[in-house]
């Protein structure tokens, strides 16, 4: 079951002086069962793009294929609930969507809306709470008393409890501390590796792209200009320069050492292999 954009354009406030084409003919296919990063400058249309995946925005032109559904421009889709149950979308700064008296009630809100039995929904919600790293003592607390980062976790748990097939996250780590964002990214990777979910993450952090993602999609001025697997993406130096992207530290260091005359292979993507390659190079000379 593919996820694909076919010549998708989207215009905000059409027919008014404020009309703005945020997407202009997006053509891309998202590989199932992988973690895909969506990167691009601010205002390039990343958030607009992902909101098409669960039909929060409907294409002005073209069509979007999501799982077994095809959303065609100009046709009002029906039964959006089943689509939204299968594609869980976590917004940028989702902490603002909490509203219930207790955290458990807030997490359970989604599954209940999608018709999950109350007992089952509660089990799932408690599990989701654990998964995002909050213990059960939080269940009865008010979501409004939490810190920003904890609220974010609760909001994400609210989507995980729906148990969607595809997980879409809009800058989930923006504004979190390094430790927190690391555990967050690990969580999404677990969702993919352990539960087989297709994961899409909008991010500005190239270290995250390298460490946690399999594929990368580059959005620029409302168009997808590139889709590639992460490693060959970061290997292509001239491409990164052209796109004005700072490579992750490991890649940068490998490159600088190479420039300084050290012979290192190009496919080094983590610190251990880099250290090993350097050691080999140094020892080989002696």
């Amino acid at each position: 079951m593919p996820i694909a954009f076919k010549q998708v354009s989207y215009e905000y406030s059409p027919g008014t002086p404020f009309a703005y084409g945020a997407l202009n003919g997006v053509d891309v296919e998202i590989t199932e069962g992988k973690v895909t990063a969506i990167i691009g400058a601010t205002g390039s249309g990343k958030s607009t793009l992902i909101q098409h995946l669960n039909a929060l925005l409907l294409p002005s032109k073209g069509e979007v294929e999501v799982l077994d559904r095809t959303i065609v421009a100009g046709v009002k889709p029906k039964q959006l609930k089943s689509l939204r149950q299968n594609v869980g979308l976590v917004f940028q700064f989702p902490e603002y969507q909490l509203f219930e008296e207790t955290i458990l009630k807030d997490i359970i809100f989604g599954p209940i809306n999608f018709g999950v039995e109350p007992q089952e929904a509660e089990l799932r919600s408690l599990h989701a709470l654990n998964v995002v790293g909050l213990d059960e003592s939080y269940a009865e607390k008010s979501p409004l008393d939490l810190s920003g980062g904890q609220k974010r976790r609760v909001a994400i748990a609210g989507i995980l409890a729906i148990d969607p097939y595809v997980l879409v996250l809009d800058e989930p780590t923006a504004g979190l501390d390094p430790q927190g964002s690391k555990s967050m990214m690990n969580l999404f990777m677990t969702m993919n590796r352990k539960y087989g979910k297709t994961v899409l993450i909008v991010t500005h952090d190239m270290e995250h792209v390298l460490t946690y993602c399999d594929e990368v999609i580059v959005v620029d001025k409302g168009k997808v200009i590139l889709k590639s697997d992460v490693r060959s993406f970061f290997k292509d130096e001239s491409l990164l320069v052209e796109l004005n992207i700072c490579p992750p530290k490991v890649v940068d260091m490998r490159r600088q050492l190479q420039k300084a005359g050290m012979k290192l292979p190009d496919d080094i993507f983590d610190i251990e292999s880099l250290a090993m390659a350097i050691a080999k190079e140094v020892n080989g000379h002696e």
Partner: protein
Amino acid sequence: MNNIALGRYIPLNSIMHRMDPRAKILAMLGMLTAIFIPTGFIGYGIMAVIIISVVFMSKLKLNFLIRAMKPMMFMLVFLMIINIFVLKTGYVVVDIYGFKIYSDAIFQTLYISIRLMLMIMITTILTATTKPLDLTLGIEDLLAPFKRFKVPAHEIAMMISIALRFIPTLIEETDRIMKAQASRGVDLAEGKFKEKILAILSLIVPLFVSSFQRAEDLADAMEARGYVPQAPRTRYKQLKRTWRDNFMLLIVLAIIIAMVALAISL
């Protein structure tokens, strides 16, 4: 959500856009007064022609003004129904198995509708052609003479400009929260009554929480920058009145006089 037309500034370049905001506010008040004078369909016909020509002068699309009136349609239908049941004077227009609809019910509704539409058009022209900030500067200046009677003109203007400033933010926020909750299976259109209440709560509570948060942040930010309401201050932007503004006010005055004359002669 983003297509709300009522009260929105439309950045264009027209004579009306360049008019002094104080003059525009006064002209609007004058025109509203003129609309309140009962001149029958003839008077309103004349007013409609005048107002529509002002719409063209401001380069606004009629389409846009019609959208601004949409929220009112529901009210008018409601009014129509009440009038049909209550007003039983005039001649019978339709007779459905003994249930008679009288001419006065229809005329009365039509009369009020036209009035309301003209009023909305006038205010929409003002808000669409005047930047919110200019509007508040205008209000502040117009209220200035009342400072003598302890009317806090500056504070009122500040409050209005803050409120206006946050309308688009609130709309954006509502849109965002609606989408976030839709992703969690909220369906505002369908569902049982109880589900609908919960759906509305899921929208209102976060909206309130973030509004209070924003208000607090704004107050802190203003305080941090040493804002004191009573402090004397100069203005970067000076309003300028030209002969065009005086001319417009003269025309409005003439319209009021003409309408009064028409009302008396009827």
